Each structure stands twice: as structure tokens, then as C-alpha cells.
């Protein structure tokens, strides 16, 4: 059997029959419930909090109950509980804990918080030029952008809005404190991020802090850094009352107050000489909300692949992330890519039109090849097959006929996207340092011990399949429990499309070692540590060199029909060709492709989320519309096999890539149909009307 041949997922049954336990389904003895007292203003000082009297069985947990009032993420600037000041609407001030939910709500309704309100900042525009609003900034050059010989300049501005992860299972954790040990159970992507956050905020040694992932109902980045904040809070609460405390958000609460995709504004300026691009300048700004969180990493990822699939000789990238009093933004599948690649791909389309060249043919002139240099001047060391992907996409989608036939109100658009796998630069080597373990027991069962979580993406199936395939044993002889930091080593967070490629490769190597000892009658333990490939050269200060271990690529075409009266958009078909190395499992990959396309479609044309004076306006399923079954186009997808030497069986990253190219292709299709430029996401009938009527 070929490694890519599909197998059934190993974790479906318990999810289908409802026996699987998500955090809200697990029973705890003496369970207490918590609700969050939140700031109702975007910025100001807390002058006082008046709690109602005469309530039994209510415990208030706030900043005074936290040993060190800081949530450790990359830096420590976010408090566990707002103390003297608040910086956004919804910032947690306290947890109200008790056994009776109704009692908690009655109590909360009578709390009065007194503020001295200050002037907040709510847009990128207001931040521009104010250094005190800057969270981070970067600039790097390739070639020589300052002394170009050009005869034409083409410049456009692009903006994108918020996007909500909208995992179907809301954020939820339980904190317990028992015999001196604090334990966090719940829905999460990164057990060790949480552990490290607890280590920082609590006065407890490492061996008294334990994090256990529960079945997780979707995450998409939304459960990367956010659960660390909640964990610090419920840990403090559990320690204070000596009983388990559960914090599960309501849907509206989750949508209003947890992290979202960063709104962005980009300006791209191309310098042309005789119709060829000789240089490009790219400038992006992100709204990071009040705390840095992961914002700077998102900004970096937006910048690092800014030249996309194209070889641009002279280039300047500049990016700034701003501090505002909007909701704090964070990780979301694609991580900077959806913003920057929308801008770049629309720019390339518009530039092609400006030069009167077919957008596919125009792209082909600039496709990067092995040996070329990336935006960060790192050499592409792998083979790149963008031309073949373009051929494949043209065949699959019937592109040429459709672009030529020009049916009224019909459009077809394309995008070509790279996505870097794993942490940027030397992150895997210097920051993550992943470790995995395999344990063979006396009966010949093999346990996978990693901190990577199953959150729906298929990690359990894919990683088990890698190990079983190397060992040539049945997959049902592999045991892979949800990670418990008392048992598993730190193989890094479940983010950055790194699980299959990086953690999978560590397991691949571990399994190869174990294979030689499978006949041994005793228990055998094999441990593997991350080794950085020697072709990776990186300077983090200058953002120069090989920004990624490897790149995955997508070529996407979207077809749309637009109602000429209402401007309602129907996306009828999406075609995708993907190079993700060797897929470990075609069915799992298809799951990523379809799911990524659905979220990309939402980002492109449905999911409107705005903020007014710091308050999210679309906070329910009825006001924030995500694709349902009736909204989905027909999906046609193919793979191009291009094994990566340092991926397990040749696998590369797949999870995020599939989302990124969809919105740009849809935008291009709408432009093709209407002949108007679409420079904002999402593209709604209202937006089209605005553009057309202007």
C-alpha cells in the first residue's frame, strides 16, 4: 500500500455516536462554574469595583489572587486580570465562581465597576505616524530598490477585515487543584504554551503543573494563544477554592472577546520597465489590538513570503503592527498569509490587466524556480513545479475557454500561493526544539508521546499512520492518547502546519530506530530531538535567509456568477492543485482542502465582522454568516507529488495553505465578471454596489 492511499480516521466513531467527551461533557466532582466579569469600556482606569453583598457560595477571583499577574506568551504584557486599567471592551477583570450558575448570574448583574474613561484608538488610520502605537515594525530589502530604471509605476491599496475562527466547540477549560498540583483540562492547541504560562504566573514548580488536552472541537488558531489567558485564570480560581472550576464561554462571548484574524491594510507599488516588473515595494499594516500577543509573528509571516510565487529582483518589504483598543487579534489558519497574499495576488491580476496580458500568462513569466532567491534572499533549495501546476490547473478548470468566452456576469479568477511549513527561520531549532518519544510495550503496542493535539485536522490518524507504516504494523497497534504534560515531551505547539512535516518527521526517525528493536521482549523507549537541516541559513534580526524549511504551493481557480441586479455572488466551482510534498493520507488531505476552501470562501465573500468603538458588531451565527452546505461550490482538486527530503515519506505542510488562495481567486473572478477592481475583503453585494456605483 502506498503511504498516500486513504485509510479511515481512527477517531471517528466516538465523535459520531456522541460518546467522545469534550470539556463540557466531562464530569468533575464538586465542580464549580466561572463567569468572567469584563470591562465594558475600551480604555480607562478602574476606579473601583462594588460587589453586591449577602450572597452565599460566590467566590471572586481577581488580580490579587495571581502570583504574577502576567500571561506569558512571547512577552508578558497582558495581565491575567485587568487591575488598575483596562485596554479593550471585554478585558477580564475577575472570575465569579460558584456552584450555582443562576446565582452567579444574579450576582454579576449587580456588580458595579467604576471607570475613568480615556480616549481609545480604534483604527489603523488613527495609529499612523504615532510611534507610541507601534507594537512592532520590520523592513527588509532584496536587490536594490533605490536605484531602479523604470518607465511606469502601478500602485494599489488593499484592505481586509476581521475573521472569526468560529470553531464549533467554544473555548473551554477546567482548572483543578489537588494535592498541591494544579491541572488544566480542556480545549487547546498547545499544552506546553499553557504549561509555560502557568509556570510564569503561579508560584509553583514545574512538577506541580499539569496540562491535559481534552477532545477539541476545532481550533484553527483560535486555541493557540487564547487558552493560556483562560488557564491562568481558572488555575488561580482552582487554587483559591481547592476545587475544580470550569470556564466555558457562551457563543456570543466567544465571538465578541476572543482573538480574530488581524484586519490589514496593504499598499503595493510595482515599478515597470517596458512592461516588465523591475521592482516592487510592499507595505502592510496590521491592527493588533491592545496587546502584542502573537501579532509580531503574524506580521513577519505576512512579510516573509511577500513576493509569493514570483521572482522579483528588487524588492522592499515593510510592515508595522499597531496597538489599538480593539479586540486583540491573534492566530488564525494562514497567519498573515491571507492578508498579504490577497493583496499581492490582486495586485498581480490588476497589473496584468494594466499591461493587457492574460493573468495566467503574466504569472508564468515570474514563477520562482529551484535556485532562485526568495523575498528574504534565501535560496529555494527544493524543486518547484509552478509551471506544471499552472498547466494542471488550466486543464482541470478549463481556464482558457472560460476566460475567453466572456459570458455576462460570469467570472473566473486564479491565485498562486506559497505557504512556508513550520516555524519561521531558525524557530524550530532555537525556539521550539521539538522532542518526541515512542514507547513499545511488552505486548508490542506502540505509544506515540507527543504534545501535538488532535483538533479535527487528523493529527492522530496521520501521525499514527506514519509510525505504523515505518514499523510495518497494523495502525490499531498504535496508541495515541490526548497529550498530558506529565507524560508527553514538548514536541512543540500544534500550529504553523508543522505537525505532519516536523513532528511527523521526528516520529518517522524514531520509528526507524524502534524498528530495529521491535523483537525485544521488554519495553523499549526511543526519543528523538529536532535537527535543523544544514541548508537553512537565517538571520532573525535582518529577516534574511531561508525563512522556511520548505514551501507548499497551491494553484486555485474560482468561478463566480453575479446577479446583475442584487450583486449577489454565487461561487459555483473551486479548482485547486496542491503541492504538499507526498500527502500522508489522501482522505486527510482532502479534509484540509475542503475545510480550507470553506473558510477561504467565507473570508472572501461572506464573513463580515466589524468593530464599532472597540465592540465587535457581528457576534452570533445569525449576524456573522459562515458557509453552510448550500453555499459551497463544487470542489475539484488534484495533487502534484513533490516529495520533500526532510518530511516524513516526503510530506510537507498542508493545513493552512488550503485557505489562503481561495479569497484572492474569488476576488479575481469577481473582477473578471464585472470589470471593476475589488480591493477589499470580504467582497459582499454591498461592497460591489459601492464600487460599481462610484
Amino acid at each position, binding site marked *: 500500500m502506498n503511504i498516500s492511499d486513504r485509510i*479511515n480516521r481512527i477517531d471517528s466513531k466516538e*465523535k*459520531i455516536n456522541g460518546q467522545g467527551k469534550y470539556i463540557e461533557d466531562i464530569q468533575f466532582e464538586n465542580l464549580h462554574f466561572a463567569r468572567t466579569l469584563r470591562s465594558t469600556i475600551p480604555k480607562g482606569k478602574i476606579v473601583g469595583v462594588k460587589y453586591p453583598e449577602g450572597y452565599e457560595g460566590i467566590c471572586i477571583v481577581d488580580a490579587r489572587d495571581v502570583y504574577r499577574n502576567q500571561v506569558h506568551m512571547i512577552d508578558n504584557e497582558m495581565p491575567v486580570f485587568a487591575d488598575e486599567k483596562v485596554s479593550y471592551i471585554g478585558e477580564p477583570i475577575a472570575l465569579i465562581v460558584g456552584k450555582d450558575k443562576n446565582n452567579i448570574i444574579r450576582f454579576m448583574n449587580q456588580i458595579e465597576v467604576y471607570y475613568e474613561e480615556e480616549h481609545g484608538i480604534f483604527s489603523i488610520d488613527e495609529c499612523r505616524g504615532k510611534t507610541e502605537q507601534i507594537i512592532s515594525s520590520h523592513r527588509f530589502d532584496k536587490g536594490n530598490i533605490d536605484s531602479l530604471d523604470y518607465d511606469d509605476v502601478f500602485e494599489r491599496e488593499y484592505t481586509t477585515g476581521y475573521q472569526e475562527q468560529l470553531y*464549533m*466547540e467554544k473555548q473551554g477549560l477546567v482548572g483543578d487543584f489537588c494535592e498541591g498540583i494544579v491541572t488544566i483540562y480542556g480545549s487547546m492547541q498547545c499544552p506546553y504554551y499553557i504549561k509555560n504560562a502557568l509556570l510564569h504566573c503561579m508560584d509553583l514548580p514545574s512538577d506541580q503543573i499539569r496540562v491535559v488536552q481534552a477532545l477539541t472541537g476545532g481550533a*484553527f488558531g483560535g486555541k493557540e494563544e487564547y487558552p493560556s489567558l483562560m488557564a491562568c485564570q481558572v488555575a488561580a480560581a482552582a487554587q483559591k477554592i481547592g476545587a475544580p472550576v470550569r470556564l466555558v464561554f457562551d*457563543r456570543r462571548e466567544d465571538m465578541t472577546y476572543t482573538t480574530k484574524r488581524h484586519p490589514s491594510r496593504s499598499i503595493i507599488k510595482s515599478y515597470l520597465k517596458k512592461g516588465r516588473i523591475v521592482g516592487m515595494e510592499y507595505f502592510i499594516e496590521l491592527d493588533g489590538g491592545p496587546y502584542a500577543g502573537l501579532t509580531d509573528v503574524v506580521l513577519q509571516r505576512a512579510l516573509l513570503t511577500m513576493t509569493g510565487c514570483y521572482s522579483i529582483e528588487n524588492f522592499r518589504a515593510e510592515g508595522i503592527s499597531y496597538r489599538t483598543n480593539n479586540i486583540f487579534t491573534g492566530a488564525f489558519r494562514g497567519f498573515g498569509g491571507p492578508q498579504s497574499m490577497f493583496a499581492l495576488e490582486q495586485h498581480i491580476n490588476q497589473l496584468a490587466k494594466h499591461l493587457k496580458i492574460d493573468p495566467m500568462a503574466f504569472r508564468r513569466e515570474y514563477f520562482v524556480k529551484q535556485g532562485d532567491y526568495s523575498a528574504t534572499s534565501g535560496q529555494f533549495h527544493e524543486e518547484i513545479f509552478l509551471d506544471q501546476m499552472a498547466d494542471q490547473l488550466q486543464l482541470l478548470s478549463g481556464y482558457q475557454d472560460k476566460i475567453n468566452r466572456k459570458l455576462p456576469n460570469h467570472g473566473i479568477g486564479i491565485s498562486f500561493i506559497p505557504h512556508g511549513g513550520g516555524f519561521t527561520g531558525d524557530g524550530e531549532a532555537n525556539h521550539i526544539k521539538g522532542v518526541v518519544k515512542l514507547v513499545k510495550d511488552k505486548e508490542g503496542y506502540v505509544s506515540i508521546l507527543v504534545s501535538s493535539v488532535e483538533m479535527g485536522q487528523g493529527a492522530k490518524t496521520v501521525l499514527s499512520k506514519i509510525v505504523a507504516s515505518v514499523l510495518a504494523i497494523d495502525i490499531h497497534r498504535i496508541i495515541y492518547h490526548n497529550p498530558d504534560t506529565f507524560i508527553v515531551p514538548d514536541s512543540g505547539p500544534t500550529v504553523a502546519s508543522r505537525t505532519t512535516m516536523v513532528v511527523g518527521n521526528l516520529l518517522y526517525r524514531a520509528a526507524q530506530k524502534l524498528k530495529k528493536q521491535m523483537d525485544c521482549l521488554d519495553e523499549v523507549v526511543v526519543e528523538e530531538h529536532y535537527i535543523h537541516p544544514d541548508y537553512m541559513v537565517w538571520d532573525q534580526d535582518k529577516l534574511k535567509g531561508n525563512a522556511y524549511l520548505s514551501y507548499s504551493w497551491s494553484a486555485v481557480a474560482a468561478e463566480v456568477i453575479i446577479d446583475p441586479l442584487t450583486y449577489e455572488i454565487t461561487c459555483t466551482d473551486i479548482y485547486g492543485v496542491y503541492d504538499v510534498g507526498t500527502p500522508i493520507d489522501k*482522505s486527510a488531505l482532502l479534509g484540509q482542502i475542503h475545510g480550507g476552501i470553506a473558510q477561504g470562501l467565507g473570508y472572501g465573500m461572506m464573513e463580515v465582522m466589524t468593530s464599532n468603538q472597540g465592540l465587535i458588531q457581528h457576534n*452570533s451565527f445569525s449576524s456573522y454568516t459562515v458557509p453552510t452546505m448550500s453555499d459551497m461550490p463544487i470542489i475539484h482538486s488534484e495533487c502534484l507529488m513533490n516529495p520533500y527530503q526532510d518530511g516524513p515519506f516526503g510530506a510537507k505542510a498542508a493545513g493552512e495553505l488550503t485557505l489562503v488562495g481561495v479569497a484572492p481567486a474569488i476576488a479575481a473572478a469577481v473582477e473578471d465578471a464585472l470589470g471593476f477592481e475589488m480591493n477589499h475583503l470580504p467582497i459582499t453585494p454591498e461592497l460591489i454596489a459601492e464600487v460599481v456605483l462610484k
Partner: protein
Amino acid sequence: MMIEFELNGEKVKIESTLSMRLLDVIRNDFNLTGTKEGCSEGECGACIVFLDDQIVNSCMVPMSNVIGRRIETIEGFSKTERYQIIERAFIEEGAVQCGFCTPGMIMATESILRKGGPITDELIKEGLSGNICRCTGYQTIYNAVQAVLKEVQAHV
């Protein structure tokens, strides 16, 4: 007050108010946690159960509407033969990712089958468009329902 109804084929009694939500009763009082809460506003379908022969979003149903009626949850339905067919199709089509929407999808699928009559593409899409899934992009779920139809029709 004491409320009596039938739950997964058994007569049950529960001390509850009339305005209590059915979803809370089945999850908290009967510990049947296969029925999920995704939104609590009748918008996502994660909490679907059968009330007599109709599917309902149990987050929107007060106990006053349950008195003397039949409730069937995923736990009850999963004991049937038809469930086995649906389960197999969902597994084989790869229609499950995070699984949080899945029990609701299964109940909605069964509801399409129970309606009887010819089942068109439109009917499937309509029947499942009240169920939000953020993971799968729906195509594998759609394929699974098609596979179920084929098998069920082969049996009649």
C-alpha cells in the same frame, strides 16, 4: 414541577421548571452529552434531537413543550440499525473532523430519511443547511448522505 416524557424509549420523570431548556435537561440531568451546545440560539444544529418525529434544536425547546412527548437523542438513535449505516458512511467518506457538529449532522441525516418520498440533492442540502460545520467544507458529509441513501434504497 414534575415533568414526564419519554427519553430514548424509556418513560422518565424529572423535577424541572417549564421554561428549562430541553438541551440542559438531557445534558445535565441525564448526562447525555452527545447532544452539543454550539450557539444556544437555534442557529447551528449541534443540539438537534428528535421530538416525536420532528427534529428540533433542543436549545430552543422549553420543557413545557416536552411533557408527554417522545425525545430521541444521539445516544438512543445510535442503538438502531439505521444508525450503523449512517455511521459507516460517515467514517468511510471521511465526513468527521473535530466531530463537534457530527451528532447533530447524524440526526439531521436521519430526519431526511424519515421524511420518506424521493430525496433530491436539494432536499439533502436543505435538510442539512441548518447544521454548521466549520471543518469539513460539507462535501464529504454530502457524499456520506448520498452513500446512506444508496444503501437504504438498496434495502427496500
